[in-house]
C-alpha cells in the first residue's frame, strides 16, 4: 500500500463541486480520501506532502478524442508515446478512437488494448469501439460484447455514417446498453472534394470549400434520431455557429444530447492556414472567426459540453504535400490546456468553464467517476501554473509525430505535475 499523499497549499479549482479556493487534498489508496477547503490540512503520520505553493490543483483532464497509431501505424504514435504526451499535457484519461489497423470493432481487440495500455501508458487509455464493422458504415458491431470487453463508448472516429436508416438502427441498439454514441457529423456528398472552410479565403487560395451545411444538415438529422431512439448522443465535434444553435435547441428537449469541440476550432480560424500550411488542414476544417466566437459563446452557455484535443498524429510524408493532397489532423495532447488557457488570459472565458469542459463534463458524458475533486474519486490530479510562459517547439514533443497547429506559439500556462491514482506520473523540471 502506498503512503498517503497530501497536496497542500493548492488553489483548488474543481468544476464539479464549484470549488475555487485554497485548500488541501488527501489521497489514500489511489483515491481522494479527504479535502480541506479554505486552509491547510492536518498531515497524517508518514504522509508524503506536496506543497503546491498556490498553484492551481485541478482534476486531471479527460480527452474524448485521441487517435493513436497503435496498432498498425506505430511510427506515428504508440500507446506508450501517446500516454507520455498525455500526462505531459495534463491529460490523465483519454478516449482512444477505433481508427486503427485493424479497426477496434471486436471485443478481443478492446481487451488487448486495455491490457497493453495498462502495461505501457502512464495515462489511462479508454478504448472506444467502432459503431460499424471496419468503420465502413454498413453493418453495426457487437455493442454488448464490446461494452463487456471494456469499451467506454461507441464511435466511428473520423468517419461519419451517411445512412440515416443505419444510424437509427445503431442508435436504437446502443440505447439497449446505455452506451454513449459519439458521432462525427459530416455530409460526405456536400464535402465532396472540399479541403477547407468554404468562403472567400478558400476561393482566393483556389481550394475547394466545405460548406457549413455539411455539418449542420447531418447534425440536425442526428439530433432528431437521438430523440427518436433515446440514445445517449454526443456530437463528437462541432465547428459552426449554426451547430451551436441546433444543439442548444435539441438540449432544451432532450437532456441526453451533448456536444464536443476540438481545441483547434476553439483557438484558430481559417486564416491560420495562411499560404497552404497543411498542419492547419483539419477535420472539421477551421472555420471563420464568427464561428470561433460562437464556439466560445457555446462553451459559456453550456451548449458545448467538452473540449478535446482531436490529437491525430500524422507523419511528414503525408503532411508535406500540396494542401489538397495532404492528410487531415494535428497533434494536440501536449498543447490542449495551454491553448485553452489563452481564452482565460484574454478574458473570453473563466478558468472554471474551460476546466469543466475538460474534466467533469466528459466524465459525466462517459459515466466515469474521475474528473472531479471529491471524496472517493480517483486521485487523478494536475498542478498547473496558469502563468508559466513557454513556447511550443517541435523537438519538445513526446508524441512521435510533429504535426502541431501551434508550432512556435507562445503559451502562458503549463502543467507542472500530473498525478494518476495518487502517483506522480509527470513532473515539469521547473516545478519547485
Amino acid at each position, binding site marked *: 500500500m502506498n503512503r498517503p499523499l497530501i497536496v497542500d497549499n493548492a488553489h483548488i479549482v474543481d468544476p464539479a463541486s464549484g470549488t475555487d479556493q485554497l485548500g488541501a487534498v488527501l489521497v489514500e489508496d489511489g483515491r481522494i480520501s479527504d479535502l480541506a477547503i479554505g486552509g491547510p490540512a492536518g498531515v497524517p503520520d508518514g504522509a508524503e506532502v506536496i506543497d503546491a505553493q498556490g498553484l492551481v490543483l485541478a482534476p486531471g483532464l479527460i480527452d474524448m478524442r485521441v487517435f493513436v497509431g497503435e496498432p498498425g501505424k506505430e511510427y506515428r504514435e504508440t500507446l506508450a508515446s501517446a500516454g507520455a504526451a498525455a500526462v505531459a499535457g495534463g491529460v490523465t484519461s483519454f478516449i482512444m478512437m477505433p481508427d486503427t489497423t485493424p479497426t477496434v470493432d471486436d471485443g478481443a481487440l478492446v481487451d488487448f488494448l486495455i491490457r497493453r495500455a495498462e502495461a505501457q501508458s502512464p495515462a489511462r487509455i479508454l478504448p472506444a469501439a467502432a459503431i460499424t464493422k471496419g468503420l465502413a458504415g454498413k453493418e453495426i458491431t457487437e455493442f454488448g460484447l464490446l461494452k463487456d470487453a471494456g469499451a467506454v463508448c461507441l464511435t466511428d472516429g473520423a468517419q461519419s455514417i451517411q445512412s440515416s436508416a443505419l444510424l437509427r438502427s445503431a442508435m436504437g441498439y446502443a440505447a439497449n446498453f446505455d452506451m454513449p454514441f459519439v458521432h462525427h457529423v459530416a455530409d460526405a456528398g456536400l464535402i465532396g472534394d472540399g479541403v477547407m472552410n468554404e468562403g472567400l479565403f478558400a*476561393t*482566393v487560395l*483556389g*481550394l475547394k470549400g466545405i460548406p457549413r451545411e455539411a455539418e449542420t444538415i447531418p447534425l440536425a438529422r442526428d439530433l432528431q434520431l437521438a430523440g427518436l431512439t433515446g440514445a445517449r448522443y454526443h456530437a463528437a465535434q462541432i465547428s459552426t455557429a449554426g451547430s451551436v444553435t441546433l444543439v442548444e435547441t435539441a438540449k432544451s428537449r432532450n437532456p441526453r444530447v451533448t456536444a464536443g469541440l476540438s481545441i483547434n476550432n476553439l483557438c484558430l480560424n481559417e486564416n491560420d492556414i495562411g499560404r*497552404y500550411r497543411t498542419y492547419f488542414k483539419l477535420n472539421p476544417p477551421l472555420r471563420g472567426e464568427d464561428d470561433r466566437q460562437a464556439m466560445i459563446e457555446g462553451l459559456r452557455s453550456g451548449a458545448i459540453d467538452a473540449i478535446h484535443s482531436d490529437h491525430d498524429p500524422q507523419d511528414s510524408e503525408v503532411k508535406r504535400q*500540396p*494542401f*489538397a493532397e495532404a492528410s487531415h489532423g494535428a497533434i494536440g495532447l501536449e498543447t490542449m490546456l495551454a491553448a485553452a488557457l489563452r481564452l482565460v488570459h484574454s478574458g473570453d472565458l473563466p478558468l472554471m468553464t474551460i476546466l469543466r469542459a475538460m474534466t467533469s463534463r466528459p466524465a459525466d458524458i462517459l459515466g466515469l467517476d474521475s474528473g472531479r475533486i471529491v471524496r472517493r474519486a480517483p486521485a487523478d490530479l494536475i498542478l498547473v501554473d496558469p502563468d508559466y510562459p513557454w513556447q511550443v517547439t517541435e523537438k519538445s514533443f513526446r508524441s512521435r509525430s510533429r504535426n502541431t497547429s501551434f508550432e512556435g506559439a507562445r503559451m502562458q500556462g503549463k502543467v507542472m505535475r500530473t498525478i494518476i491514482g495518487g502517483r506522480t506520473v509527470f513532473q515539469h523540471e521547473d516545478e519547485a
Partner: protein
Amino acid sequence: MPQHSPARSSGDFPPFQQRHLISIADLKQHEIVDLLDRAERMIEISRQERKSLPTLAGKTQINLFFEPSTRTQSSFEIAGKRLGALVVNMSVKTSSVSKGETLIDTAATLNAMRPDVLVVRHSAAGAVELLSQKVGCSVVNAGDGAHEHPTQALLDALTIRNHKGTLAGLTVAICGDIANSRVARSNLLLLGALNVRTRVIAPRTLLPAGIEHLATEVFTDMAEGLKDVDVVMMLRLQHERANGKMIPSVREYYRFYGLDEEKLGHAKPDAIVMHPGPMNRGVEIDPAIADSDRSVITDQVEMGVAVRMAVLDALLPPRNDP
C-alpha cells in the same frame, strides 16, 4: 494598333524585387506595370528577324509540368530560348510521381541539378508555393490547380493594353467556369490591382463563395453582365463539369453562357473577345466569334511569349560577376 511606350533596354528597369512569381497577389502595382513594360520590349525582340537576347546565357531553366500543357510549356520554352537559357522540359506525370515520389522529393532532386529557374505546373493549388520553399532557385507558377496562373493574367493585361491603348477606365467581363479557373483568379487580382472594373458572369454553380469580394460585380445572366463592357474574356469549360452536376448539358450551357453574336451585341461595339485557350468551339464560344476580327486570341499567344520573356528577365537579372 496604338503606339507602345518607347522601347527600353533591360538595364533601364530598376531591379525586380521578387525572387519567385507564384501569385499576382504578391506583386505590387508598380511591379505589374514594370513587367508589362518589359514585355513591350520583348514583343519587339520577338518580331525581329534575330529574336534573341543574351540575358539568360549560361543559365538553366527547367520546365516542370505535372500536368500536360503543350501551349504554356512551349511558350515558356520559346521565351527561355530567346533569352539564351538552356531549357529542359520535364514531364513528371508518368515518371517519378507514379513511383510514389513526393513533390518534396522531386524538389530535392531538381535542386541538386542547380537550375536557375523552375517553371512549374501542378494540378494542386499551393503545390508551386510548397516547391518554391524547398529549392534554391527562382520559381515561376505556370498554373497550380484552381489557384493562379500569373503569366496568363499578365499576358491578358498586355493584350488589352495593346488593343485599347490603356487599361484605365475599362470594364472587363470574365465569363464561364469561375469556380475552377486559375485564370479568372489571377485576372481578377491583377485587374483589381490596376483599378480596372471587373465583372464575372457564370451560372451559380460555377461561381465560388465570396467572389463578390474579388470582382466588382457578379452576374448570372450574360446579357446583363456583358452590357457596355470593353473586354469579354471567355473561360474554357472543362468537360467534367458538364456531367449533369454543375450544369445539365453542354447544349444548355452554350444556349445561356456560350458567347455568340447576340450576346456579344450587349457589349460595346469595339469590345474585344479573349480566351486563354484551348477553346471548346460551340461550347463556351461560337466558332464565328472565335475567328472574327473582334477576337484577339492569337494575339494573346504572342503576348504570352513576350510576358514570359519579361518575367524570366526580371527574375534572373544579369549578374556582374567579378
